[in-house]
C-alpha cells in the first residue's frame, strides 16, 4: 500500500515537472504581417533570437499574411482560445479591435512610470491611431507615410525637373500627362501616375487625397464619417480626373501590381508606402526619387502601417514579456535597423540620433524624405466596424474610377452606407 502511494506521488511529481519548467520560461507568440518586399521573416527571426539571448524569453514569431489576413488569423485564433499574445496589426483597426473586446490596453499590460515616459518618445503623428477613451492601446512599430516614387529617367525624357517634384494637384496632373507615353499605334507604354484602388488599399489612397483637400474623414471617437462633403467629393474627382486626362489608366490599379509596374517602367510615378523604399532601391535599374504627396495647395499625406497590440488572453507573466518585447523592438538601435532594412520610418526621433542611421541617411538621403512630411500627415481612416466602412468606401471609389458613378454620387452612397453601419455606435 505504502509502496503504491510512493509510486503515485513520484509519478505525479514527474508529470508536474514539465509544467513547472514551462511556467518559469515564458514563451510568447507574436503574429506579424508582411506588406512590403524584402526578407522580413529573417529579420524578425533575428530579433527574436537576440531578445531570447538577452532576456531568456522565447518569442515564437508567426508570419500571418498581409494586414487583412493577419487580422483575421489573430482574431480567429483568439476566439479559438489559442491566440497570439501580441501582434502587429493595422494601426487603424484600434476601434474595431476594442469593439471585439480582445485588446489589453497598455495600462492592462502593466505600463509603469518609466514605460509612460518611453511612450512619450514616439512621433505624435504615429500615436494618432493609438488613443481612445483616455488610454493607449498600441505601440507604433512599422509605420510609414504614403509617398510618391518617381522614375528620374522618365522625368528627364519628358523634360521635367528631377529635383522639383510637383507640389500641387495641378502640377502633378500636368506632369503625369507629360509622362504618359504612347507608341506608334496609340497604345500607352508608360502611364504618368498610378494609385492603388483595390480592396484593402483604396481607403488609404483616398485618406491621403482627402487630407490633400484639407478634409478629415471621421471623428476621433470613430463613430461618425464625413464622406458627403464638398472637399471629399473634390478629392475623388481629382483621382478620377487623372484617368479622364489620360495620365492614369482607367479602372482599378492593384497595390501589388504598382511595384512591378514601376520597376518595369510602365508607371512613371506610383503612390506607395515608405516601407517599400529598400525593396525599390534593391531592384530598380534606373535612378528614382521619393517625394511627399502633393496636395490641392501644398503637400499633405497620411500615415499608415502597423502597431503592436496586446491581447487579453495573455496571463500577467505573458503580458509583461510581451511589453518587454515591444520595448525591445522599438529601442533606438533596433528602430534604426528596422528602418534601414525595410524603409519604414523609425518611430522615435531618438533613432535618428544613432550613428548607424545618421551614416545611412548621409549615404542615401532619400531615406529621410518621408520623415520631413510627418508634420503634414494625419491619421488613417479609422472607425468602428472599420472593415465594413472600408468596404463601403472601396466599392464606391471603384465604381467612380470605372466611370459608373460620379464622384458626388459615390461619396453620397458611401455616406449613406457608413451611417447605416455606424448607426448603433452613435451616442445620442
Amino acid at each position, binding site marked *: 500500500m505504502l509502496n503504491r502511494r510512493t509510486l503515485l506521488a513520484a509519478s505525479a511529481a514527474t508529470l508536474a515537472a514539465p509544467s513547472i519548467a514551462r511556467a518559469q520560461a515564458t514563451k510568447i507568440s507574436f503574429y506579424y504581417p508582411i506588406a512590403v518586399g524584402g526578407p522580413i521573416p529573417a529579420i524578425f527571426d533575428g530579433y527574436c533570437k537576440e531578445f531570447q539571448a538577452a532576456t531568456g524569453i522565447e518569442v515564437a514569431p508567426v508570419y500571418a499574411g498581409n494586414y487583412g489576413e493577419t487580422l483575421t488569423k489573430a482574431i480567429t485564433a483568439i476566439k479559438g482560445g489559442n491566440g497570439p499574445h501580441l501582434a502587429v496589426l493595422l494601426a487603424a483597426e484600434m476601434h474595431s479591435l476594442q469593439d471585439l473586446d480582445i485588446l489589453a490596453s497598455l495600462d492592462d499590460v502593466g505600463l509603469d512610470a518609466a514605460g509612460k515616459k518611453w511612450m512619450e518618445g514616439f512621433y505624435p503623428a504615429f500615436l494618432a491611431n493609438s488613443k481612445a477613451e483616455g488610454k493607449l492601446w498600441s505601440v507604433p512599430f512599422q509605420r510609414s507615410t504614403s509617398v510618391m516614387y518617381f522614375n528620374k529617367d522618365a522625368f528627364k525624357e519628358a523634360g521635367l525637373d528631377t529635383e522639383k517634384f510637383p507640389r500641387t494637384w495641378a502640377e502633378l496632373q500636368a506632369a503625369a500627362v507629360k509622362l504618359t507615353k504612347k507608341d506608334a499605334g496609340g497604345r500607352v507604354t508608360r502611364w504618368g501616375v498610378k494609385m492603388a484602388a483595390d480592396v484593402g488599399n483604396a481607403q488609404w489612397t483616398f485618406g491621403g487625397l482627402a487630407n490633400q483637400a484639407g478634409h478629415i474623414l471621421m471623428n476621433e471617437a470613430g463613430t461618425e464619417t464625413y464622406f458627403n462633403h464638398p472637399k471629399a467629393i473634390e478629392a475623388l474627382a481629382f483621382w478620377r480626373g487623372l484617368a479622364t486626362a489620360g495620365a492614369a489608366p482607367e479602372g482599378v*490599379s492593384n497595390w501589388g501590381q504598382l511595384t512591378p509596374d514601376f520597376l518595369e517602367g510602365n508607371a512613371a510615378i506610383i503612390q506607395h508606402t515608405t516601407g517599400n523604399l529598400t525593396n525599390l532601391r534593391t531592384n530598380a535599374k534606373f535612378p528614382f526619387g521619393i517625394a511627399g504627396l502633393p496636395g490641392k495647395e501644398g503637400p499633405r499625406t497620411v500615415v499608415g502601417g502597423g502597431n503592436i497590440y496586446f491581447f487579453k488572453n495573455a496571463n500577467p507573466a505573458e503580458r509583461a514579456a510581451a511589453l518587454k518585447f515591444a520595448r525591445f523592438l522599438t529601442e533606438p538601435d533596433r528602430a534604426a535597423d528596422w528602418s534601414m532594412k525595410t524603409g519604414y520610418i523609425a518611430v522615435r526621433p531618438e533613432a535618428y540620433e544613432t550613428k548607424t542611421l545618421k551614416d545611412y541617411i548621409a549615404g542615401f538621403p532619400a531615406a529621410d524624405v518621408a520623415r520631413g512630411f510627418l508634420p503634414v500627415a494625419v491619421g488613417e481612416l479609422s472607425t468602428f466596424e472599420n472593415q465594413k466602412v472600408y468596404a463601403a468606401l472601396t466599392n464606391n471609389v471603384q465604381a467612380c474610377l470605372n466611370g459608373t458613378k460620379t464622384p458626388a454620387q459615390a461619396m453620397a452612397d458611401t455616406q449613406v452606407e457608413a451611417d447605416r453601419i455606424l448607426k448603433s455606435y452613435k451616442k445620442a
Partner: protein
Amino acid sequence: MRRETVQGWLLILPALLLLVAFTHWPAATTIIDSFYTTPKGSRPPRFVGFENYADLMTDPVFWTALRNNAVYALWTIPASVILALVMALAVNTAIPGRALVRMAYFTPTMLPMIAVANIWLFFFTPDYGLFDHVLGFFGGVRHNWLGDRDTALPAMIVVAVWKEAGFFMIFYLAALQAMPPDLKECAALEGSSRWNFFRRVTLPLLMPTTLFVLVNAVINAFRLVDHVVVMTRGGPDNATTLLLYYIYEAGFRFWDQALAATLTVVLLALLGLLAWLQFGVLGKRVHYR
C-alpha cells in the same frame, strides 16, 4: 431482427458521428444563429426573429453577389461540361502523342487553385501581361481585365472553366473507354453517320456521367472562390463578389456573425433546391444500364 438493427446502427455510427459533428450540427447552429444579432464583446446575442433576413433582402451587395453567382454558374457549368466532352472525344481517338495531350488537359486540375490564380494574375496584368502582350501584336488596346467592371467577372469565369474542364474530362474519358466497341461497328454497318451515332448512341450512354459531372459543376459554381480571393477580392465594386466569398467577408472580415449565418442559410437552401431539381427531375430522365 433487433440485433441486426443494433448492428446496423453500430456500423454506420462512425460515419454518422463525423457527419453530424461536421455537417449537421454546424448547419443547425447556423440556422439558429441567423435568428440572433452578432455578439460583440460585452453585448450578448439578442433574438430578433426574421430581422436578419429582412435586412438581407435590402442589402444591395447580397443581390449583386446572387446575380454574379447566377451569371458565373450559367457560364461555367455548360462551358466546362461541353469543353470536357469535346476534349474527352478528342483524346479518345487515336492521335499521335495522345498520352501527352491527355496529361496537358489534366494538368490544370492537379494545380491548386491558389497557384492557378497567381499564374492567371500574370496573364491578366494590364499592358505587359500575357494577354495584353499577345493582343498588342495584333494592334489590340490595353485591357484592365481585373480592374474593369465589365471584364472582371468574365475573367473569373475563364479561370474556373480552365481549371475544371480537365477534371470533368477524366470522367467522360472513362465512360467513353467503357463503351463497347461493337456498338460502333454495328452503327457503321447500318451506315449511320458519325454525328447521328454521337447523338443517338454516345450521348445517351454518357447521360449518367453527365448527371454526375453536372452535379459537381453546380457545386463548384458555388464552392470555387479561391481565385476571387487571390485575384480581385470581390472587386471592382463587387463585380466579382460571389455568394461564398461574401459569406467569408461577412464572417471573417466584418466579423458579422448574423449576416454570415443568414447568408449561409440562404446558400444552403439554394443548393438544396438545386440538388432536388437535379436528382428529382433530371435524374429520372437518365438511363442507367
